[in-house]
């Protein structure tokens, strides 16, 4: 019995990480109907940047957050302004092609630079310290921190969207692009901000994932799939939905693992397919997505 409860608890903690990965994807899609196929690769890229920083400047990887996150936001902003805005003009296929190309570019550059080895960010005892609840349930310290940050981040994003002026402009742009521009909203800035937020949050996810397990130049593609699944399960364009989707995916994977260690990921995919088949709009049918 306890074993199952532990599986669920671990799944929830894992789900927090997935939610971190996915909220950026959800935001970009909500605001501009943009599917960024390089999303996972940016997470891995941030991990490599942190890796290099630690190699040269030492210390615990935790300080790299202060550099990597703002840098990711800046990269996101510029990427949208210089490249992705143009992709949007080309029609629905164009963003997919452009970000697909970007994904391949990033993965290959990383491979050139770092080889195909597994790397990891060592955070010392933080990686394995845990709180023991009872004989079956252990809460990894890092995992709990990640979960906490995920919830905090999503809550902050939600607050930003619902209460702040730029957040409101962002929701307006997602709702009716034409009306937003006729109201004086600078669409380009709104889009660039959304991408900046997306890349910053996925960088957080990438760094934590790197601390929790290992990463390679191509592991971004895998992460992308989980991010997608979390977004779809939870419901497109709704951040709390994305959190819920992440949690459900995490639990599906860990419970599946408990049943058969090899089938954890498969269980996640099966849940994803079930949602697509029976409730394609997601658990929380979005208030924000407009037909």
């Amino acid at each position, binding site marked *: 019995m306890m074993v199952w409860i532990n599986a669920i608890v671990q799944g929830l903690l894992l789900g927090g990480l997935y939610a971190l990965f996915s909220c950026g994807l959800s935001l970009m899609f909500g605001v501009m109907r943009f599917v960024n196929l390089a999303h996972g690769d940016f997470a891995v890229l941030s991990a490599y940047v942190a890796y290099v920083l630690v190699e040269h400047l030492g210390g615990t990887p935790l300080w790299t957050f202060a550099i990597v996150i703002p840098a990711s936001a800046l990269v996101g902003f510029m990427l949208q302004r210089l490249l992705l805005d143009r992709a949007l003009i080309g029609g629905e296929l164009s963003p997919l092609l452009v970000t697909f190309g970007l994904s391949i570019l990033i993965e290959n550059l990383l491979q050139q630079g770092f080889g195909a080895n597994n790397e990891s960010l060592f955070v010392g005892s933080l990686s394995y310290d845990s709180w023991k609840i009872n004989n079956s349930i252990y809460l990894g310290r890092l995992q709990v921190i990640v979960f906490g940050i995920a919830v905090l981040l999503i809550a902050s994003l939600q607050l930003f969207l619902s209460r702040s*002026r730029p957040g*409101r*402009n962002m*929701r*307006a742009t997602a*709702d*009716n692009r*034409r*009306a*937003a*521009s*006729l*109201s*004086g*909203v*600078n*669409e380009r800035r709104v889009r660039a901000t959304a991408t900046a937020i997306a890349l910053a949050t996925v960088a957080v996810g990438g760094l934590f994932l790197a601390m929790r397990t290992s990463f390679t130049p191509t592991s971004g593609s895998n992460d992308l799939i989980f991010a997608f699944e979390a977004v779809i399960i939870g419901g497109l364009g709704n951040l709390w939905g994305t959190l819920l989707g992440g949690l459900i995916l995490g639990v599906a994977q860990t419970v599946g693992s408990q049943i058969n260690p090899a089938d954890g990921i498969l269980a996640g995919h099966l849940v994803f397919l079930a949602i697509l088949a029976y409730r394609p709009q997601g658990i929380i049918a979005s*208030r*924000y997505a*407009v037909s």
Partner: protein
Amino acid sequence: MTLLRLERVTAHYGHLQALDELSLSLDEGATLAVIGANGAGKSTLLSLVSGELRPSQGRVYLNDEDITKVEPYRRVNLGIALVPEGRHLFSTLTVEENLLVGAASRRQGRWNIDAVYDVFPFIKQRRNVRAALLSGGEQQAVAIGRALMSNPALLLLDEVSLGLAPVIVRDLYVALRQVTEGGTTLLLVEQDLTEALNIASHVLCLLEGRVALSGSPQDLDQTQVVNAYFGRHAAPPEANSPS
């Protein structure tokens, strides 16, 4: 003082010619009603002023500044606000949020959220309701209010009476009269000619992309307007060079 000037603008949608060398001049404080049959070019005219469409020829001036190439969102900053046909509210945002987005350009002036509620009191009690749930008349009021929040010098209105009962249209025009009294210049496209001609200080009748009639309502009679609208007694022009 001339606020808006269009200089021989020609506009196309693909191969379709929508406006043909049209010129007009609008004074500050005036209310211009643009009328005409479907396809005459009325909405195209508004699109040129709002910036959503670029002319294939000709120029648009605001306060003698050439704004022909200025993007729509920046024109809001310059003082032009469009209430589009079909309202185009942010359906998932509340009434109040819709109005607040209208202030995105941060232009200052007499219009703020309280002033808008004063002019449209019936939407104040709906301020926290999502726009999708409002009635047609309420939506139109919010659309106008949202445009007012940018404190425009020139307010453009595209068919505000569309789909609304006459009683509601009358109330909206009472509100619009208050807007004009505050000094805002109005350019409206309207099917309901009774209301349009009532509020207008000037009338422009378009026909096939050209001006068929222009003047102030007191100087025109109904037959003139109807004939201009239908293009009657318009002598077929001598062969212009084909495009």
